[in-house]
């Protein structure tokens, strides 16, 4: 498991203190990122969070205002795009409309001889299962085929790092899920480092070894999917990766088990993690246990069911608690779900609740 704070001694690609301003607008601010060889990293965030700008900085289309980019030990910060051993797959694919599929794939292979180039083009066509499509024009292909041509073209020069800007964004849902698996398998097989930009958390979770969450031009947290889901750095990350109940409180002390005790509007609650002063507990709906009778140890929280939604495998409930806040609870559908208006008792294992700083 890749750790958040120790990304290894010498990464393949290292961005240090990277920043980019467009006039008064800071698109990327003080960003550190280290990519390991063969690693698959997703940059996740809403539009305008700076993830595409970061990709363009690495590709060389933008010059950073501050910081450096190193690749395999060499400083490439000032190198123009055509001298960088990284390649980019563009969001809109940017296939050359006046060239055939084969000529698109061969565009980056001008250093090779005629025969070697032809062989490489055939190899790439096979790689993305487009044998025989070489003479076609890009605008005669379907969206999925164009996506594969773009991927093959970006891979043609065997880059050390492949940058992919929303590679599946233009595909419809069914095709996207299928293509996710293919992309992941292809990356494993080639061993090339991938950096994928996406705004879709499910896609990031399905694809990446590590996910970097960006907000307002900053990399707020980077880690594998589980650590981001279980131990989010702030409310933004917690909310981005799935449903979450946020319970603000004031840190009181630590209990003997190492958990932090907080005073909240619902009384004293416990959670894992550390914060000073004000804190927020992030509690996932599926961590909450629900029963009709009080447990008797006085730790459970009574509430009234406001709404139930049957989802097949789960039942989602909204429960109003004593202080008036409404929690989202996700219960297995096999249990007989309580009806609206019924009083229920909620409890959760405190080691599965995560305490974050209140600010941010």
């Amino acid at each position, binding site marked *: 498991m890749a750790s958040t704070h120790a990304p290894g001694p010498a990464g393949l690609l290292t961005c240090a203190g990277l920043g980019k301003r467009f006039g008064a607008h800071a698109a990327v601010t003080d960003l550190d990122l280290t990519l390991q060889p063969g690693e698959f990293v997703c940059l996740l965030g809403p539009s305008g969070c700076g993830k595409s700008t970061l990709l363009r900085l690495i590709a060389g289309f933008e010059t950073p205002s501050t910081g450096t980019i190193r690749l395999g030990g060499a400083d490439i910060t000032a190198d123009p795009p055509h001298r960088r051993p990284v390649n980019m797959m*563009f969001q809109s694919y940017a296939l*050359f409309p006046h060239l055939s599929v084969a000529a698109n794939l061969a*565009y980056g292979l*001008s250093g090779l001889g005629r025969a070697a180039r032809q062989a490489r083009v055939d190899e790439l066509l096979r790689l993305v299962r487009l044998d025989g499509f070489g003479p076609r024009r890009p605008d005669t292909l379907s969206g999925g085929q164009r996506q594969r041509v773009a991927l093959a*073209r970006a891979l043609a020069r065997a880059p050390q790092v492949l940058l992919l800007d929303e590679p599946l964004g233009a595909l419809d849902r069914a095709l996207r899920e299928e293509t996710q698996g293919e992309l992941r398998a292809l990356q494993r097989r080639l061993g090339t480092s991938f950096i994928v930009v996406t705004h879709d958390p499910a896609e990031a979770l399905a694809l990446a070894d590590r996910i970097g969450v960006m907000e307002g031009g900053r990399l707020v947290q980077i880690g594998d999917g589980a650590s981001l889901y279980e131990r989010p750095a702030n409310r933004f990350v917690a909310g981005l990766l799935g449903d979450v109940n946020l319970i603000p409180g004031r840190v009181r002390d630590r209990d003997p088990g190492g958990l932090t005790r907080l005073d909240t509007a619902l009384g004293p609650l416990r959670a894992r993690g550390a914060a000073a002063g004000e804190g927020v507990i992030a509690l996932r709906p599926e961590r909450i246990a629900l029963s009709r009778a009080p447990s008797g140890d006085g730790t459970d929280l009574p509430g009234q069911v406001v709404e139930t939604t049957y989802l097949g495998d789960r039942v989602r409930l909204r429960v109003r608690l004593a202080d008036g806040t409404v929690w989202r609870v996700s219960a297995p559908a096999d249990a007989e779900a309580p009806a609206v208006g019924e009083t229920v008792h909620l409890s959760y294992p405190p080691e599965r609740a995560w305490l974050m700083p209140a600010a941010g």
Partner: protein
Amino acid sequence: MKRLLPVLPALWLAAFVLLPVILTLKISLSTPATAQPPYLPVLDWSAGIEGWGSFLEALDFTNFETLASDALYRDAALSSVTLAAIATTILALIGTPIALAMARAPERWQPRLVALLIVPFWTSFLIRIYAWIAILKPEGLLSAGLMKLGLIARPLEILNSQGAVLIGLTYAYLPFMVLPLYAVLTKLDPRLPEAAADLGAGPTRVFWTVTLPLARPGLTAGALLCFVPMVGEFIIPDLLGGSDTLMLGRVLWSEFFSNRDWPLASAVAILVLVLVVGPLILFREDEAPEREARR
């Protein structure tokens, strides 16, 4: 009304293009005469079918035979096409970098740059060409400036030469080359040159393999917009070209006004038409297979 709408352009073309061409063609097949109108035959409408018969009998190709046999017209045609072709080439070479620079300028600057290109057109064409006489004449701005700089010892004898005509043509037609190119280049997806650079192409290769091929429709349109009127251009060769410069526009003018030979002037006009329609058809056929392939 709605059904009439598609017919309107056809009516317009028939009234203002087809009909004049037919009339000109008719006059070009006539014989000059000292009369009013100054040519024969004139159709006698009252004679009915017989009148038509004798009218058609009197038409012949004498004027076109004159055009073919007299070296003057051949030379004028050749010189017109050559000068127009050279000027079009120069315009393409100058216009492409200008259009590129305009298309790559910051967006808020672009309307101002387009305006700068068009502003000279607010002055009369004739006055602007006269201004070039003042610049190009031996004691004019150009020679005086170059002599002051010590680059030349004697005044240039550029006015009244083909060089002056080329300068005039290039100057006058620049916007017609730049604007269509600019229109195509601003619509060019900026990611395409980026993708080319990403695949290892330096700026020169990006230009020749991506930017220029994708700008070709603009280049073709610009070339036609310049070449076609330049072949028949009259004012520029007349004012800047002196007596040495033979162009069809001037020949036509002198046949019509000096010699009062309407039929021969009409034949020259038809020749100009044929000369400029040629490249139009050529380019159409050049574009056609590409459109087929796109389907």
